[in-house]
């Protein structure tokens, strides 16, 4: 009757686990057990935790992104309309807490600011892709932590991306194609035609066909509503045929008939937002919120996030090894990587230290040389100084000698003069002597002029000739 899986040897004394599909038999119940309340238990638990939903709105400035969000969630979210003068594409993210009966929803709306406004739009898609990747990265980091709080984690991954197409009526712009192609593998892309009250009905059908054919021919994978569950397959199937939705957003209410409806008023008529004949807004709201919100979240988690995780882990060097080689490859690879990193760090440190030492040495050598030069210069100057001093001393000496000699001769001459005056008739001699004296004085003054004014002492080399 039942399947007993008996384990074999006493060492391996715990049971063999039966995998699903292997011998799982359905057993009939003899009465009401009561686990049909399980879905309710699950739902209660989810309600107490709350839900979160993140929408990314990509589109050019002025296409009505904020207005559409306001209309979708029946709320006036705050915000200023953006200017057209942004230098680059930026993303603006706001989180709101919405509550409806007992369900709490944490809604995050991310909007591109300045998309399509630049002259060179080659890199416009890049900030968007980086933002999406950053959210995945944050979740991956949390998941890889040792101590993690996953069940309380505020999931910020983008669940749905609404791509706003300008209502030109012709075809997709190349910017649209490029951006959608980059985004389709990272997020669920739902293209919508914005401000579709500018297109007439016939143009609209042609426009939609053109858009879908262009998307298909370029291989862009937009989000298809799931058709594998019978409960929603039918409605999702019909909706898939209406993609992309042509929507109008409006928060103004006008009285039509006896009801207040959201509408836009023109001189030639009024466009009602929730009228299915006027636009596809109701379809979008149905699909996005009321039917497929859970599926969008699941696709994000199980497809896009898993893809990102796989790529990221492979990039970091992890691999799934065979089940019988390493039991805990992640941990070992972590260790290996960590050691490698530490080794690199150490190597760099060594290098830097060596460079530092070398520089110091060089600087030292330079300084030494400079010092040496200075010494030499000092020596040289000192020597010069000494030489000069010596020269000057020599000169001084010689001049002193001359002065002494002159003094001697002066005294001798005066002596002679006194003797001559006594002898009388020495006027001529005196005259001669005076003449000679003046002549010699002159020659002396000449010589004093030649020596550069250092020694004012008048040297005198008086050749006294004995008369």
């Amino acid at each position: 009757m039942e399947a007993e899986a008996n384990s074999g040897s006493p060492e391996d004394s715990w049971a063999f686990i039966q995998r699903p599909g292997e011998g799982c038999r359905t057993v009939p119940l003899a009465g009401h057990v009561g686990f049909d309340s399980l879905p309710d238990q699950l739902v209660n638990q989810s309600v107490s935790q709350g839900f979160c939903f993140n929408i990314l709105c990509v589109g050019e400035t002025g296409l009505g992104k904020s207005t559409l969000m306001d209309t979708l969630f029946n709320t006036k979210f705050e915000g200023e309309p953006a200017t057209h003068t942004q230098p680059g594409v930026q993303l603006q993210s706001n989180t709101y807490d919405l509550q409806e009966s007992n369900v709490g929803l944490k809604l995050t709306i991310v909007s591109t600011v300045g998309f399509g406004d630049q002259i060179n739009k080659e890199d416009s898609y890049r900030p968007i892709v980086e933002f999406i990747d950053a959210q995945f990265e944050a979740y991956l980091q949390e998941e890889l932590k040792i101590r993690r709080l996953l069940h309380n984690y505020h999931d910020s991954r983008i669940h749905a991306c609404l791509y706003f197409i300008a209502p030109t009526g012709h075809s997709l712009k190349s910017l649209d194609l490029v951006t959608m192609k980059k985004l389709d593998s990272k997020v669920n892309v739902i293209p919508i035609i914005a401000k579709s009250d500018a297109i007439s009905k016939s143009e609209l059908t042609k426009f939609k066909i053109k858009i879908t054919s262009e998307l298909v021919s370029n291989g862009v994978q937009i989000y298809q509503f799931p058709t594998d569950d019978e409960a929603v397959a039918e409605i999702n199937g019909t909706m898939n045929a209406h993609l992309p939705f042509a929507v109008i957003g409006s928060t103004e209410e006008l009285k039509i008939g006896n009801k207040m409806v959201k509408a836009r008023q023109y001189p030639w008529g009024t466009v009602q937002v929730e009228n299915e004949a006027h636009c596809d807004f109701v379809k979008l709201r149905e699909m996005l919120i009321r039917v497929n919100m859970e599926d969008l979240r699941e696709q994000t988690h199980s497809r896009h996030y898993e893809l990102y995780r796989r790529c990221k882990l492979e990039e970091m060097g992890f691999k799934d090894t065979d089940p019988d080689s390493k039991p805990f490859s992640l941990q070992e690879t972590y260790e290996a990587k960590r050691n490698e990193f530490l080794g690199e760090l150490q190597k760099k440190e060594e290098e830097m230290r060596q460079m530092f030492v070398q520089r110091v040495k060089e600087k030292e050598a330079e300084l030494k040389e400079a010092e040496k030069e200075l010494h030499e210069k000092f020596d040289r100057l000192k020597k010069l100084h000494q030489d000069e001093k010596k020269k000057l001393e020599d000169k001084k000496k010689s001049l002193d000698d001359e002065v002494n000699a002159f003094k001697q001769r002066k005294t001798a001459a005066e002596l002679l003069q006194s003797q001559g005056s006594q002898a009388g008739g020495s006027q001529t001699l005196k005259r001669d002597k005076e003449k000679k004296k003046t002549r010699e004085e002159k020659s002396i003054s000449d010589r004093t002029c030649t020596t550069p004014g250092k020694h004012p002492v008048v040297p005198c080399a008086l050749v006294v000739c004995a008369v």
Partner: protein
Amino acid sequence: MDPLRQSPSRSSSRASSPRTLPSEMLGYVGIEAVLDQLKIKAMKMGFEFNIMVVGQSGLGKSTMVNTLFKSKMWKSTMPGLGVPTPQTLQLQSVTHVIEESGVKLKLTVTDTPGFGDQINNDKCWDPILGYINEQYEHYLQEEILITRQRHIPDTRVHCCVYFVPPTGHWLRPLDIEFLRRLCRTVNVVPVIARADSLTIEEREAFRHRIQENLKTHGIEVYPQQCFDEDINDKILNSKIRERIPFAVVGADQEHIVNGRCVLGRKTKWGIIEVENMAHCEFPLLRDLLIRSHLQDLKDITHNVHYENYRIFRLNESHVLPRGPGWVNLARAPASVPAPAGPQANPGPSKVGGWAKDNSDEEC
């Protein structure tokens, strides 16, 4: 779903992070449809539940399982029919799929014949702890794969029902040792087995003594007090905690009582009705396990016990051989320090609440 119904224009009752702005909803949006979407998805995927019954032979474990799930999961083993008592503890696992009102439940019951039957019962809890940790290990290995499955098959033990023999006195040393070790790894629900041998007063006295024993030794059985999230949970769970351990009687034979067909045990002095609250507390156990707390059991296993195991595994040295030495890992994480921070708020952080218990002397 009345489209013109106004929803309360208040911000969410839960504390929002500083940067969220409470918004007023001016009309009906349809967010609650997500609950239906969840239900549909859950019913499509089906549920899994793994339960383990532990106790000495002859306490009526197999009968109890059959009674709980109203089907012949196990053949009730009766001693003396030539089946030798197993010399070592062997775990046996049976998986069945049961369906009720469109809800499919894949139920795995693990039995432990031979527990506590030997003369020397030292370390008889090792194989059980090893089995539980092995399930955690399987799940962990699946989770850290690069290319992992969309839905990882969950074989972790969500609940362990421990059968206490109806001695009427105290918990035996074997019971205390086992409960102490297991309550840190898995959700344990102790029950008084074969309670038809105790009168109502004896039952109450026995229950009180067991509760005192549990408190003295610091054994936290399910529903654990530290995981009560809000006031409603607290009230509900304290009512349950007053009645733990339940005094149960198992029976899988039907008898006619007062014209009704009931499950019960027929004795010379009367018929003990299993589902009668005056006779035994089986309905309480059934309600706890299946009707009200099944999802909670799974959540606590996933969010707390599995995370503790994961922390323990990732923290220790990565040079781990598989094989006979593996059983030693069954020791509960000795010094798991409580994370600083969210421990102060009641509720949100359920991880790391086991800082108090110190590890045992097991090698």
